[in-house]
């Protein structure tokens, strides 16, 4: 018999297996999830969840898909949070400090409470990446925020109303498009293909007999 623990889903008590994740506990309790469930493996940010353990004052945030239940856990899911997503044309924006001021001016109202960082389900230093964004240091902001799954818990805890994941999204796109070093061998290859330089080689290969294709495949040299 598996060991059971009590969890309180939206305040209602259910006995669930101690090894279950919060998501599995909800399903064990009989819920059919539509909201608050996506990749079930910590990549999509659909299952942001807040909880407290009875007797403990601290509020915790996590992803329900990848957090084990604990005894006397009080759980509320946050399947949607109204983030502000500024609309912009990636071809027209420039990676200057002004663009953040224009699109996400509220980041300058950060009071430095660090609630975002404390709440981050990915353990990121959210306040730090917002500081980079304030200074227009998009490369650093991009690197610091890279593992963000955009679950929105940080924003739910922010007294300044900052939509941190969207700020980071903009910083990463600016970095990827404008600041990261240009890849010349890629651009060159795209041009060569447009000129048709690889067409003949490919066409000839495709026309080989099935036997010859097998031979070519089985004897091809493999880069070390």
């Amino acid at each position, binding site marked *: 018999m598996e060991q059971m623990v009590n969890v309180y889903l939206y305040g209602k008590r259910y006995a669930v297996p101690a*090894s*279950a*994740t919060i998501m599995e506990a909800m399903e*064990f309790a*009989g*819920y*059919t*999830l*539509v*909201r608050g469930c*996506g*990749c*079930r*493996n*910590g*990549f*999509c940010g*659909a299952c942001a969840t807040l909880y407290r353990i009875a007797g403990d004052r601290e509020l915790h945030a996590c992803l329900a898909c*990848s*957090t084990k239940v604990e005894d006397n856990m009080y759980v509320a899911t946050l399947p949607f949070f109204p983030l502000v*997503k500024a*609309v912009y*044309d*990636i071809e027209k924006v420039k990676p200057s400090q002004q663009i953040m001021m224009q699109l996400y001016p509220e980041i300058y109202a950060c009071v430095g409470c660090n609630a975002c960082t404390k709440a981050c389900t990915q*353990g990121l230093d959210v306040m730090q990446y917002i500081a980079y964004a304030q200074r227009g240091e998009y490369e650093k902001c991009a690197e610091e925020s*890279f*593992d963000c799954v*955009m679950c929105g818990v940080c924003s739910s805890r922010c007294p300044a109303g900052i939509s941190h994941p969207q700020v980071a*999204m903009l910083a*990463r*796109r*600016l*970095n*990827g*498009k404008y600041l*990261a*070093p*240009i*890849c*010349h*061998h*890629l*651009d060159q*290859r*795209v041009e060569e*293909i447009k000129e048709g330089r*690889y*067409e003949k*080689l*490919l066409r000839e*290969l*495709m026309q080989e007999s*099935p036997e010859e*294709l097998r031979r070519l*495949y*089985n004897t*091809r*040299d*493999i*880069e070390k």
Partner: protein
Amino acid sequence: MYQDPILAASAQLVAQAREKNIRLDPPRMSAEEKEQLLRTYHPDYREDQFQALTVGPSKGQKVPRELAALLQGHSRIDPAAIDLSKTDYETDVLVIGGGGAGAAAAIEADEAGAKVMVVTKLRMGDANTMMAEGGIQAADKPNDSPAQHFLDAYGGGHFAAQKDLLAKLVTEAPEAIQWLSRLGVEFDKAPDGTMITTHGGGTSRKRMHAAKDYSGAEIMRTLRDEVLNRGIPVVDFTAAIELILDESGRCAGAVLMNMETRELHIARAKTVVLATGGAGRLHYQGFPTSNHYGATADGLVLGYRAGAGLLYPDTLQYHPTGAAFPAQIFGALVTEKVRSVGAMLINAKGEAFMNPLETRDVSAASIIRECSHRGNGVKTPAGYAVWLDTPMIELKHGAGTIEKRIPAMMRMFGKYGIDIRKDPILIYPTLHYQNGGLRIRVDGQSDVENLYVAGEAVGGIHGRNRLMGNSLLDIIVFGRSAGQHAAAKAADVTPGKPTLSHVEAFHNQLREAGVDTGVISPRLLPTYNSLGKDF
């Protein structure tokens, strides 16, 4: 650290053998060895797990039993009770599915000037794209070429790919990477801009581009941001439950269902792009899956009922390295990149029993053989598994490599107290990808006029097995292409009279053939609640 004494002892054995194993380069199997291995151990070869279809455009075709029940199931609606004259949404191009292929199609259809709309069953980005970790292939290095890429993929797919589709895939691959870069996707690069590329199973050149081990997530969130920037309407939590045709059998829209209120809506469109993804959540043969929650083959059911044929629906990809321990992440993907950057597969005796970079089907079959017939599996609470020796990575490439190159893996196991820099991890094959799907022409159109298909719902691009990194590639190449062609075609379409007569006709065929699977389809979500209540 492993608490379980059996696992701890076995991990210790792996650690002791590490110095010796790391110097090995286990030979690759010959073509004959591979064929024999697959026949004996790959799940695709278990005859009793497949069933021939008795009705529909691919009558006689073998498919997994679970899929047969859905393809030959009954509609969620009574077609006679639906009033198609009441239109809720009207658009040029209707994109069904909010993953990578759907987003790429929507962006390109919008770029071409068409009015486009996306409907998606869950949220935009709830898709296997988001979970693709390892990378995306493109032949953009001097020692590589589209032909070399073709040869790898064609052979890896057992010489069964539709050649014209595969040629398009490899030829347009560098441009796909360029397009993504210009949208702001952050690929791993050296300071001089050179792409950092690695091998994947079955590649002959290092052409795997990555964004750490969040490659798919990085692509998906960027595409989603771009869809929103363009103001393309996204109707989320809305599933397509039937396609609408017109009097001449051309696709003309879809019946939609709000996932929360169950209200039905009618969307009329001049062309439709079906980008509904895969089927891992059907758990073929009882396998766990690495797929997202909504991967239930719904697009295959919709397309099949409307008259679109299937190609290779009997070929599934079992990713060799699904997490086998702990239980909370059972079946979750351990990216192939872990092997690309140097981890080897080790059995319970501490032996490196195979070359870690064989193709996925061969690797999966080899692991299953190790855990069954050969008796070299490690006993876990859920069954048997083999080790993936992650500490080797830092012995080969230096401290810090794991955090830099595969941070998501470090985090996933770290949450359960396993530090993959110090301890190896336990893996077993997991249901990962649907190699087959709806048949398309090179412009992306299915057997049904004005119905385009892109992404994992397509069959034929990869043949009977897909190489790592060719799926993120195909959703971009064929997603963009489907959007472009659907937009161009929409300009020439004069809307006809909408009908669901094909649904009635399909019901009649089922009756005449005496088929009653007792199943309502498409299935929209898996049934995981303990009460067994289907959605």
